[in-house]
């Protein structure tokens, strides 16, 4: 297998991480909605924490994307 083919396969494998992170982001917002619908009064005060959780989950997906881009363009 030459380097070009290996790069494309590697970038595709790295892109799996983006999909997994999307599950994480969905879980964050889904859990927030579950809690928020049980106690709507407390929901607004927790939005900061919602976005912290979102940012943490999203960061890992973005790192996977960055790895894919590095493999494709920088290696």
């Amino acid at each position, binding site marked *: 297998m030459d380097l*070009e083919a290996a790069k494309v396969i590697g970038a595709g494998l790295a892109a799996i991480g983006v999909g997994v992170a999307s599950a994480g982001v969905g879980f964050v917002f889904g859990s927030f909605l579950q809690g928020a619908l049980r106690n709507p009064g407390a929901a607004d005060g927790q939005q900061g924490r919602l*976005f*912290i959780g979102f940012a943490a989950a999203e960061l890992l997906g*973005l790192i996977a*994307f960055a790895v894919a881009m590095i493999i494709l363009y920088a290696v």
Partner: protein
Amino acid sequence: MAAESKIDPMHQFTIDAIGGGALDGTPFVFTNSALWMLIVLGTIVLFMAGGLKRELVPGRWQVAVESLVEFISGIAVTSIGEEGRKYIPWIFTVFVFILFANYWSMVPLTVVGLHPFTVTSQFTITGVMAVISFSIVLIVGFWKHGFHFFSLFVPHGTPKPMLPLIVAIEMVSFMVKPFSLALRLFVAMIAGHILLEVFGSFVASGVASGTPMGYAVTVVSIVFMAFVNAIELLICGIQAYVFALLTALYINDSEHLH
């Protein structure tokens, strides 16, 4: 494979000199990045100037500016407390600059032949902002607590045998903060704009092919691009909010320790 594809999604992030080489007698070059930063700055100045009239009965513009300021002071006060008010200038600066830069990059000026440059898609820009945020954290921490600041690495109630491991983990998670702050913003902007570029080129090459299949691809791509644009507008706001919020939280850590 690479030979027939003409899409170059990374081209939009290249930094070019505008108006020739270096400025007279200096090694500095006026680039498209600098130009768009000036445009962003000009927009911010215009926006803020419209809201500083101190009218007794505020107009719409005044209300827009005031609610933006109140939103930021809300972030600072809820996450740091009353002493967070002195950090509002920096948090506000970061939030407004990122927000305006992100939204300028979404303006479809390509239609009239201009090429909007995404200021926040460069690691140097986001990195400098993250480093300033992190410097504030360090300076405030050491200024207020001296060497007691290192107790940040030891959470309350840690069992003695676990101490070396916990300290190492806390240390790494603390040191990684500026990188994650800068990386999140710049990669999110790059990813979104690559997606837009790729689907935009699908539209163009679908029309250029002139076949029924090509037109079908064009229609699907345009519908999809509308959704991606909507998501991107949301992401632009969220990234600015997250950057400001995390800056406030990190400052809170150094202001109050654990």
